[in-house]
């Protein structure tokens, strides 16, 4: 593929970047990324990937924009309240970079649709709030050998790692979801809005590194930070031989039932 003058100008800061260049920008432009959740994490991920010129961005979210979202979900604006999040996100991306093809899935990710959806993409970004979906994404991606970026935030803290086939997965760290209502959600415990941006931009960076195939991904290590102390740590972890899905004797060979407590559905 060849870039037009306008594209060369738009992506000039990437093109002059030593480890990206024209070659890397072509890879970005041919990249297909699925973002699960157009919320606190999905918002900055979508904006930066669109600005970077990722060719196809899929966004799945069944929710509508709520006033409480605007404190951190920077892709949605005040007039978007009550609008479907995927439509709000699609409109902003179209304004930011009309060259990006956005596929909006205004639905919920489930055991029934996840394989069909993720097979269309190179990498998946987990921007979800709940553990059943995090485990669903992990299991489907491990079974389908699909790379994904895990992200979690709470209060003043964040964590992220990147899965690629053959490396450690989410279940290597957390073998099963926590009991319902034991771990507070952001709506219960609060979250500093900018934390979502800090973590989301790290996830977007991992995706871009993955697409241009440069640097070292956050595989087999988890990055955690606490914004109050502004301490960042990277904790190494290997594939867990006891992992129930990618260990030596996996007990999970297909998708399971991933229950979301009813009281968590709305808030």
């Amino acid at each position, binding site marked *: 593929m060849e870039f037009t003058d306008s594209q060369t100008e738009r992506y000039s800061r990437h093109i002059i970047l030593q480890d990206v260049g024209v070659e890397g920008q072509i890879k970005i432009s041919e990249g297909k990324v699925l973002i699960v959740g157009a919320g*606190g*994490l999905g918002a900055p991920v979508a904006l930066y990937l669109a600005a970077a010129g990722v060719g196809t961005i899929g966004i799945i979210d069944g929710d509508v924009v709520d006033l409480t979202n605007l404190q951190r979900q920077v892709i949605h604006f005040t007039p978007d309240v009550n609008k479907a*999040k995927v439509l709000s996100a699609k409109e902003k991306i179209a304004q930011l970079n009309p060259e990006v093809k956005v596929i909006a899935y205004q639905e919920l*990710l489930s055991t029934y649709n996840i394989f069909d959806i993720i097979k269309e993409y190179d990498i998946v970004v987990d*921007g979800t709030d*709940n553990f059943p979906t995090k485990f669903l994404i992990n299991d489907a991606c491990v079974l389908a050998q699909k790379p994904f970026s895990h992200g*979690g935030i709470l209060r003043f803290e964040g964590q992220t790692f990147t899965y690629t086939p053959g490396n450690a997965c989410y279940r290597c760290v957390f073998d099963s979801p926590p009991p319902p209502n034991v771990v507070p959600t952001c709506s219960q415990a609060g979250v500093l809005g900018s934390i979502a941006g800090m973590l989301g931009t790290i996830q977007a960076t991992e995706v871009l590194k993955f697409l241009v195939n440069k640097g070292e991904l956050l595989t087999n290590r988890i990055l955690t930070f606490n914004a109050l102390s502004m301490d960042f740590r990277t904790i190494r972890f290997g594939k867990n031989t006891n992992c129930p899905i990618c260990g030596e004797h996996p007990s999970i060979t297909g998708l399971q*039932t991933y229950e*979301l407590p009813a009281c*968590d559905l709305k808030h």
Partner: protein
Amino acid sequence: MKIKVNGKTQEFNQAQIGLIELLQLNKVTNPELVSVQLNGLFVKREAYQETSLHENDEVDFLFFMGGGSLSTLNI
């Protein structure tokens, strides 16, 4: 005795300390909230009770964190 907890050294008078006690001292009252790596290997949750830490052990607590967007799951 010195133990490295989440990258920072903590000092104790005794020669060993139980993992559950260490978690409590670090304000983790519910062990179900945390995944524990001891000297680079994950400790099975069933083994938390019988695990104790000794001089120069390095332990990391990894917490469940959600965040982002709700309403993405439908079963």
